[in-house]
């Protein structure tokens, strides 16, 4: 394998990692605060993609400029956060915080099953493909190979901005500090009068919106069809577990690791491609049971 091929593999890996990170970051944020692994996260991703592709398609078909697709992505993400995230947290999750994690996981699994069918009822079975946003930005040629600017530049930049934005939000703003406080020690946070219910709600809405944004960003690059949510959720689980549960920066590193590993496999051993995320996860957890950036829970006696 020569140098240019290695670089091509890196480009592919980074662009893929950016998309995976967008989904995984919401999952890990929710876990950090609510201590719930949200299986329905994949459905929120899919719905974000469907919203963007269907509305975007209608907007372009009606003769409006495809540049509208970009604000539309943000709108789709906000819709997912507010219209789906908020009711899921308020009506379902809030009832089960005191219950065992098995039941919590299953509640989100049930929501996942329901949302999978809801998607089909709303959008049908035919794939949507709406890539005007991607075509708008054109191509870049590297070593004689064309890449879309959207995938090579825009996606990694958005992922990076999301990472930086989240860091600033969590450290600099009052709401962010409240979320951080609950993540670190929820009992202590409660005892100093933080309204944990509100923090939970905000976090879940934010996490859901990030899943929706991930879907919205992915939609121009792919066919949106039933089942994309299930694929994505398993992959982002792997990212989150590799990173260490609740670790936002870790999710970025793990997504990059998995993205690069996956593209390297496509170049060197295509048959191993689908195995790579899980192999990386196993290898990491074998050495560091808490994930790359997780901290071991001390047992106090």
């Amino acid at each position: 394998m020569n140098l240019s091929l290695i670089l091509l593999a890196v480009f592919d890996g980074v662009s893929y990692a950016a998309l995976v990170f967008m989904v995984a970051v919401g999952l890990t944020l929710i876990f950090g605060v609510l201590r719930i692994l949200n299986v329905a996260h994949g459905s929120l991703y899919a719905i974000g993609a469907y919203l963007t592709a269907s509305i975007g398609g209608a907007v372009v078909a009606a003769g409006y400029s495809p540049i509208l697709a970009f604000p539309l992505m943000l709108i789709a993400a906000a819709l997912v956060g507010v219209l789906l995230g908020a009711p899921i947290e308020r009506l379902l999750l809030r009832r089960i915080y005191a219950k065992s994690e098995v039941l919590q996981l299953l509640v989100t699994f049930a929501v996942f099953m329901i949302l999978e069918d809801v998607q089909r009822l709303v959008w049908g079975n035919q794939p949507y493909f709406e890539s005007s946003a991607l075509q708008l930005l054109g191509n870049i040629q590297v070593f004689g190979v064309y890449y879309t600017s959207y995938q090579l530049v825009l996606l990694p930049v958005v992922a990076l901005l999301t990472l930086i934005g989240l860091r600033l939000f969590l450290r600099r703003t009052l709401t962010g500090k409240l979320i951080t406080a609950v993540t670190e020690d929820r009992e202590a946070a409660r005892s100093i009068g933080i309204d944990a219910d509100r923090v939970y709600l905000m976090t879940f809405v934010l996490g859901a919106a990030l899943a929706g944004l991930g879907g919205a960003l992915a939609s121009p690059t792919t066919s949106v069809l039933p089942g994309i949510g299930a694929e994505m959720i398993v992959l982002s689980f792997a990212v989150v577990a590799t990173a260490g549960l609740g670790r936002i920066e870790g999710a970025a590193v793990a997504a990059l690791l998995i993205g690069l590993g996956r593209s390297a496999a496509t170049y060197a051993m295509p048959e191993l491609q689908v195995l790579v995320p899980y192999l990386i996860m196993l290898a990491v957890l074998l050495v560091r049971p808490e994930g790359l950036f997780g901290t071991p829970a001390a047992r106090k006696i």
Partner: protein
Amino acid sequence: MLTRTLLSATILATALGTGAAQAQDKPDALKIGVATFLTGPASVFGVPARDAAQMLAEEINAEGGIAGVPLEISFIDEGAGGEALTTEYRRLVEEEGADIMFSGISSGNCMQIAPLAEDLEVINIMWDCGTQRVFEEGDYDYVFRTQSHATAEMLAVVLYLLKTQPDFETIAVVNQDYAWGRDSWDIFSTALKAMKPDVEVVGEFFPAFGAPDFSTEISRLSATRPDVILSTSWGGDLNTFVQQAAQRGLTQQSQFVLPLAESSLEALGPALPDGVIVGGRGDHYFAHPEMVGTERFDSFVSSFKEETGAYPIYSVFHMVQAFEALKAAYAEAMEENGGSWPNDQELIAAYEGLEFQGMGRPVTIREGDHQGVEAQLIGTTVQSGDYPFATLENMMIFDGAELTTPVGESSIDWVGALSPDFVEKIEPTTFD
């Protein structure tokens, strides 16, 4: 246990008493169970085919049914998984008393259903699945196929490619990672190497079924620059792959060969560039050059378009064939037995060697292995502007009999033994 034994004893007694040749009473309805994908990725084929089945049944019933017996159709969702399919299949046969079953789209499901149908002694028409393995690895009395199989479909594409682009040197494949993707590549590559031994395979990719992203494969192919890129993918996978490849100029760089893309022409719209070699698993095309202008074809295409909003694709045509074969089989069986309602054995006898016509050239069902022999239509895309999507030009229609594996032979062995002069020997009908 006791009731069961008694029950089978009664059935046996009835069967013996009436005798196989004796006429049966006409039933109130001819019950047909149709397995098709209503959910999951393959519903891109399954749902239009279901719509077609409903249309066809209504049409037949409006004309008084088959010999006065109306059709009654129930559907099974193949997308609910193998267990649900077999359970529901049994329920339809054993409880609802389905007279004949059409099943199904997925080759895996066909492999599972064929022995079950044999056990249940119900006639099963494999109305869409393409695996050649069913009849090459098993021998069934009750199972028939009303269309061709993967070998003929792939062979036609190889021949078209070799006739139109004889000088290419390298090929790469991007197929879905499941039986169809693997089997079709086995047949295609074996046939290609037999007829053009100097060809070099420079990349074999089998991304997961339903993969949302092919960016890495496309980068890899862009760097490798194969002369020909083959993909037997379909549905969302094919659309994604073609769109992503077109966006990044790969379709300009290599000759694309997409044997199933007839089913995606409309869905891909303007994204499918000119010059791509396209097939449709048989001679299936909404503007079939030999059929356009015939009254039945034109009215079917336009009423299907009106009913569903889309042009018919090959799964729709396959459904038509299943119904046409049904009508023809009943007609023949009743002619044989003097006009009374046929029993299963008479119907099976009628299906064997049956000739019927769907929306293409006539199809025959071979007596030896119950395999359908069907013509193959291959063409090259052109964005002519007549439709908001690509249509076909430079079409060739291959006669099915020459391309179908002889009865009792294994497809891979048979295509592997072909020689380069086979390309010249086969003379398809050509169209502009």
